[in-house]
């Protein structure tokens, strides 16, 4: 009993001293609560479906950020990993009769293999060359899908895949909790030593190599990790939609993930997730003006970029928080002095 009270008091102390002092941390807590409590407020299946898909795409966008935002290996063909994950989960489920909790991780492993296959030629290429080359991979796979319609279902895709869970609410909870978990893992990876090396590779690869880091290995690692998370997103998508068609390999999906990540702010992880949860439901709920919604989407993106070229969420964070010039600790923008070292903030 005493122990529980101790932990409770500790929790309150952390909450009061570490979380509530910074608006960005409060925002993260609110986001978690919102995701977990949403089914209490609405049982509209359409709303749940939109947020489930948003969760899937959030994993996908964050995995792009892990690769391209952090290491600067601009990937224009990220739909490859998503599509490979979706197709392999679907095929494994259909032919070997494995349950979703096995077929999705297996699909993700095939996504890792895809990451290696793309990553090895990509090691020799840089910048724009890399971006334009990676664009080619999903299109090559699409060509193969159309060429062997007996195996891949051709234009119609693979249908008759097992459902992820019996009801919509179950599916919502499985996918959203997975999303929160995987995104936290991705954020932890980028916050670790590996993440620092990823950052450094983007800033100056030669300098990193000169300090004795095997950049080749880290770049391949980034490709594999990204392929893994995107593969999971693809597998979830296949089991949720119960179809894996050529649309999961489309160029527009590759472009969409770049738009989401850049719109929210690259190299942040929270940026792409926030952007997906902002843009995806926005576009979906505009179905009253069906014909105009993609147009509206494009205009929103263009206008936001004109004023916040570094991404929406980064811009917001700069507005509500300032960094202490002396001890580099973040503070809420309304404070005059730093909360740790009491140096004046300007």
């Amino acid at each position, binding site marked *: 009993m005493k122990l529980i009270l101790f932990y409770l008091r500790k929790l309150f102390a952390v909450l009061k001293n570490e979380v509530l002092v910074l608006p960005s941390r409060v925002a993260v807590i609110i986001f978690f609560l919102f995701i977990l409590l949403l089914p209490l407020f609405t049982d509209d299946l359409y709303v749940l479906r939109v947020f489930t898909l948003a969760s899937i795409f959030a994993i996908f966008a964050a995995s792009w950020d892990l690769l391209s935002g952090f290491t600067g290996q601009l990937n224009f063909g990220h739909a490859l990993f998503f599509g490979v994950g979706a197709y392999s989960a679907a095929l494994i489920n259909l032919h070997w009769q494995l349950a979703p909790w096995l077929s999705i991780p297996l699909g993700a492993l095939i996504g890792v293999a895809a990451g290696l296959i793309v990553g090895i030629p990509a090691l020799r290429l840089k910048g*724009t060359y890399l*971006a334009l080359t990676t664009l080619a991979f999903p299109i090559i796979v*699409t*060509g193969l899908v159309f*060429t062997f319609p007996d195996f891949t279902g051709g234009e119609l895709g693979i249908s008759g895949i097992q459902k992820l869970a019996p009801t919509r609410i179950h599916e919502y909870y499985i996918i959203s909790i997975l999303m929160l978990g995987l995104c936290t893992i991705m954020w932890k990876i980028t916050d670790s030593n590996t993440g620092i090396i990823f950052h450094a590779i983007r800033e100056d690869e030669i300098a990193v190599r000169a300090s004795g880091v095997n950049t080749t290995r880290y770049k391949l690692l980034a490709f594999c990790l990204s392929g893994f998370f995107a593969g999971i997103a693809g597998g979830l998508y296949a089991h949720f939609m119960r179809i894996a068609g050529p649309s999961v390999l489309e160029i527009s999906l590759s*472009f969409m993930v770049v*738009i989401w990540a850049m719109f929210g702010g690259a190299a942040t992880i929270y940026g792409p997730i926030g952007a997906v949860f902002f843009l995806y439901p926005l576009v979906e709920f505009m179905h009253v003006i069906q014909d105009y919604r993609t147009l509206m989407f494009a205009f929103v993106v*263009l206008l936001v*970029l004109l004023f916040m070229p570094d991404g929406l969420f980064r811009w917001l964070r700069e507005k509500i928080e300032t960094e202490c010039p002396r001890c580099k600790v973040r503070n809420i923008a309304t404070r005059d002095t730093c909360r740790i070292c009491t140096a004046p903030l300007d």
Partner: protein
Amino acid sequence: MSIILDIIVMGLIKGSIYALLAISFSLIFGVARIVNIAHTAFYMVAAYCIYTVTNYMGWSAVPAMFVAVILSVILGMVIYKVFLNPIREHEGAVLIATMAIAMVFQEVMTLFFSGSFLSVPNLIDGYFIIFGVKVFYQQLLTLCAAALVMVILMIFLFKTKLGLALRSTAQDREVANLMGINESKVAMITMGIAIGLAGFAGAIVVPLEILEPHMWATPLVMMMAVVVLGGLGSLKGSFVGAYIMGFTEAMVVFLSPQGAFLKISVALLIMIIVLLIRPEGLFGVYFEEER
């Protein structure tokens, strides 16, 4: 025999179109350092423009082509001024801005013309037969027009003062600026010329293709593959790469079963193999990383 001729005709036409697109894309990339994803969207806009002018206004095809090219030049320059110039320093932002512009065009065209497939009548009807292969006059015309425009472009780039300014800006932006070249003005002019070329490519190809709002995606991929294959910023590379890609596509279509599905895959595979051997492309000069 006839299949070889078929391949030659189709390869030349595809190659010329890709060459026009890739050279103009290279110009923008070289001078303004913008990866213009919306490039083939302008090609689509020009094609729709011709459809509108010939179908609804009843003009003949030649003035329609002029209207289409001029309109796409103006559109390109306005879009550069309004959307791209203010964010040019942020590479990522420019990238997704051009994607968003392409989407806007696609949606606007869908709104006006619906998603259905349309076609435009030939400029000149009729065909002649050599060795049992039908060669339409329209195909010949497309080929000649593409060749003519490329010659004019080369004369412009290598013989005029503005062309010199363009090439020097592509070589080194800062030094060009120091030599008194108004760099942002040159960038805008380049954008205009390049978009005009893309529009022209759209205008001459439209009778041979099916008109629909998604028609920009496939040429975009092929154009980028050409540019990477030839080497970024190298006009000669774009030219050679375009014909390599064009002929590969034609050969796959005519020689292999299921060729229509595989043509792009095979062409892109060739690009990847070339890049594995020469990472900077066929004629590419490796840009020193700006550090």
